[in-house]
């Protein structure tokens, strides 16, 4: 056994991998350091189920594999897993009361691949209920807390992958899985000063991930660096015959693509993303990002994505429509919560009471919106029109890519992290505006990555988003790597928890 190393929980995946391979630390010690950080981080409410026994058992197996040499990059790397992923024998509730006590008898493809690569599961991470939310405040476990704060004001880590973002930013784990339907990886990554990539739709299997909106959902890594995202995505991605929408396309060596050379590449700047009322700090950050890309030898070009303004309304028709159907299975018949029934109650009362008790208000709102837009007489006006908008948005991107644009640079969020509870009484649409820069990417099925680039006046992290061509995550990660290096973002949240 190697000498004890303190603070290993704050390492990057790349650094830990190298240290593990050199025998400078054992997977067990690395895991223990994370488990200690997790126990000390309860105030963040990031982990909702801790799995130390599984973690140590996996760490011991990883150490054995490392001793044998030739261990994969993720071997021995301790991770947090979003509660949306089904993990065998471990509570997997999508942060919803309706799945209270649900322990799947199967392992999601993503977690199975990570475990096959030797990764270690520390536990399950907080999130918005069924991934519906932008602040992690719809969770049945209560909100996760952003490790970054301003004075005594507690902030949201964003959502829906808020627990994942908080855990990675607070060094409770080396990386975490997230899922992104409209920005649920990229927005919390931006709010917490970490990296999050949503891969091309079809790059990562959805099998075993609780579905929110099937045509938009995509899992991805949330990590401390772009290199880590490249390493972890490589282990998560790949064709899965159990997911009909998963693409049979080879997975390249993403890390090898991080050359730092983007000379001659064309970076598009979409004018439609310059929104009215955009905070000056966001605008300034964007301008700095543009300069960084130009300094690195890229050609920066103004572009137009004319249908951008219709993206958010289209998204908030399509996603609830699919969700209303995807969540119909939570009916109290086979698993999860079932309401106590009164004498004389029949099946209708069982459905109504179970679903009223099991789903929180935001989930209920989206089920109702989704049911409405699919109903007879409204289908064409809402759902079909939204599909047409979606096709136009996709075409907008195809057009600029066809004109030689290699990637698109935009802000990741319209603001820095906001205070917990601040949006409680706001119009829900105000919360939905958090997704304004990110939903287009899901609607078009493209890869998008959020990279921390700077701090705002209050000292909170801000991120920029890069959008790439389909299946070209390798190039996208390289652009993000350049942005990351040039930004030199090294700030960490001061430990207060």
């Amino acid at each position: 056994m190697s000498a004890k190393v303190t603070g290993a929980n704050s390492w990057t995946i790349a650094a830990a991998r190298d240290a593990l391979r050199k025998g400078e630390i054992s997977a067990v010690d690395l895991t223990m350091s994370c488990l200690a950080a997790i126990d000390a981080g309860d105030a963040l409410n990031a982990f909702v189920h801790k799995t130390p026994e599984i973690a140590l058992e996996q760490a011991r197996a990883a150490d054995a594999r490392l001793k044998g040499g030739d261990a994969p990059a993720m071997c021995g790397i301790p991770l947090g897993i979003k509660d949306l992923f089904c993990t065998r024998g471990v509570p997997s509730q999508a942060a919803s009361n309706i799945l209270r006590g649900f322990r799947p008898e199967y392992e999601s493809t993503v977690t199975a691949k990570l475990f096959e690569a030797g990764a270690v599961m520390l536990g399950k991470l907080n999130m918005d209920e069924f991934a519906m939310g932008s602040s992690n405040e719809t969770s049945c476990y209560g909100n996760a807390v952003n490790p970054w704060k301003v004075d005594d004001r507690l902030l949201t880590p964003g959502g829906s992958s808020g627990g994942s973002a908080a855990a990675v930013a607070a060094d409770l784990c080396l990386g975490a899985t997230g899922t992104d339907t409209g920005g649920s990886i990229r927005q919390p990554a931006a709010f917490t000063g970490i990296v999050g990539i949503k891969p091309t739709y079809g790059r990562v299997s959805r099998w075993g991930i609780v579905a929110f909106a099937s045509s938009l959902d995509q899992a991805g890594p949330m990590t401390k660096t772009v290199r880590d995202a490249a390493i972890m995505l490589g282990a998560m991605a790949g064709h899965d015959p159990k997911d009909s929408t998963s693409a049979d396309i080879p997975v390249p060596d993403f890390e090898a693509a991080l050359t730092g050379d983007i000379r001659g590449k064309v970076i598009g700047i979409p004018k439609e993303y310059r929104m009215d009322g955009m905070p000056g700090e966001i605008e300034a950050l964007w301008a700095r990002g543009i300069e960084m890309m130009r300094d690195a030898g890229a050609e920066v070009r103004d572009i137009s994505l004319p249908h951008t303004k219709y993206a958010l309304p289209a998204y908030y028709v399509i996603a609830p429509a699919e969700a209303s159907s995807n969540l119909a299975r939570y009916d109290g018949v086979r698993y999860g919560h079932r309401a106590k029934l009164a004498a004389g109650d029949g099946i209708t009362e069982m459905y109504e009471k179970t679903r009223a008790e099991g789903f929180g208000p935001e989930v209920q709102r989206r089920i109702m919106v989704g049911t409405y837009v699919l109903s007879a007489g409204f289908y064409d006006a809402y759902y079909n029109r939204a599909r047409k908008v979606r096709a136009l948005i996709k075409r907008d991107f195809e057009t600029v890519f066809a004109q030689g644009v290699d990637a698109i640079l935009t802000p990741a969020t319209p603001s820095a992290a906001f205070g917990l509870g601040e949006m409680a009484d706001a119009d829900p649409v105000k919360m939905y505006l958090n997704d304004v820069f990110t939903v287009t990417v899901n609607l078009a099925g493209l890869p998008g990555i959020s990279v921390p680039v700077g701090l705002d006046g209050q000292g909170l992290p801000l991120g920029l988003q890069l959008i790439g061509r389909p299946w070209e995550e390798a190039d996208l990660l390289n652009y993000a790597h350049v942005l990351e290096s040039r930004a030199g973002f090294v700030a960490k949240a001061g430990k207060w928890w």
Partner: protein
Amino acid sequence: MLDLTYTAPTPKVIAGARHDWELVIGMEIHAQVSSNAKLFSGASTAFGAEPNSNVSFVDCAMPGMLPVINEFCVEQAVRTGLGLKARINLVSAFDRKNYFYPDLPQGYQISQLYHPIVGEGEVIVEMGPGIARRVRIERIHLEQDAGKSIHDMDPNLSFVDFNRTGVALMEIVSRPDIRGPEEAAAYVTKLRQILRYLGTCDGNMQNGNLRADVNVSVCRPGAYEKYQATQDFSHLGTRCEIKNMNSMRFIQAAIEYEARRQIAILEDGGEVVQETRLYDPDRNETRSMRSKEEAHDYRYFPDPDLLPLEIEQAWVDDIAARMPELPDAKKARFMADYGLTDYDANVLTAELDAANYFDAVARGRDGKMAANWVINELFGRLKKEGHDISESPVSAAQLGGIIDLIAAGTISGKMAKDLFEIVYTEGGDPAQIAEARGMKQVTDTAAIEAAVDEIIAANPEQVAKSKANPKLAGWFTGQVIKATGGKANPATVNALVAKKLGL
């Protein structure tokens, strides 16, 4: 392929209190696809398993589970489409039909509303020799079956069995081209026959593997012809749908009842309400299940878990190249090649196993004789013991051997029946049995002549009668055959008797 030409049958007319009415019927047949695995999961489709034993995580809609199409079920749907001379859609898509019911774990059925895999086709439904209804098929789509709710096991609880959940169904939708209860039953019979020939559905109605929803409306004579000319449904009456029937007899009775119910309403000055009805065989009546207003809003939309289903023409062509001979073609061939009557050809093609059996018996032999033997002797004998053709103790080769002995004049018809009984009960090679047991008819003219002479000499009265009325000469033939222990060839005896009597 041979084409048979038909004339259309006259539609059924029901005389109301005021005037005559005609029926217009369209059907939706739900046929379970013959496949070992379900439509979107690998679970088994075996019938009669322990409740909830053929259930995968996908079938019971566990969180995060995803459907993956079973290619064989698609092939079966394509084969069925080809069998109904239908258009095969190289691109089709799956939609979700959303509704809540405990035996529907996903909360939606995966079906094909907007883009079915099979388009327009047809079924020729024979109603008599040379008379047939051409029923147009509108579409065939693939969809999932639901599970089974069980409400009578416990006073307070209901149970669900998911074994059938997710099993592939083909919904075969006809145009409203059926014009009476008998035609409706004949349509289901014909469709079932075709599906069984194709091997795409076992047609077992008792197990619910073939079920029918029947849309019935009534109209005044002449209205239907206007509809046919324009395809404008406003010429037809308001329809009611009778759900989920799994017996030919009930289908007919339900249509009959429903038509009379609608006629009574209309003649009373009322209006038929479009609704879904259930047939109660105990009371022989249909009852309202839900009205149009109460109808579910199924909120169909494309299933985002499944990409559009794209198939290649070459794959379809390959399935087409491996198509079996279908009932119409087989019947035409039996009539042309074996000289069968329309009736016998129908009997012999009703079931594929029987048709194949007959084909093997008849090949290279006298077709009519083969048909008589298969229908009268074999089917009669099997029916007596409640056996199926597949359980026949007499193989086609054995029956052929018996017919060969008759054709060669070796044995008489009477001996053949005895021989058949022996082969049926004991088995064995017919020629060897006949040889071993001395079953051989006498064709030696000299030996028969002696017997004829002897009987003529002994019966002068009978001779006189026969000379007056030659039809009575048959008595001598019978006597001669009897005298020779049944071994004399009847044709030879007949000729000799006629000659000796000078007829």
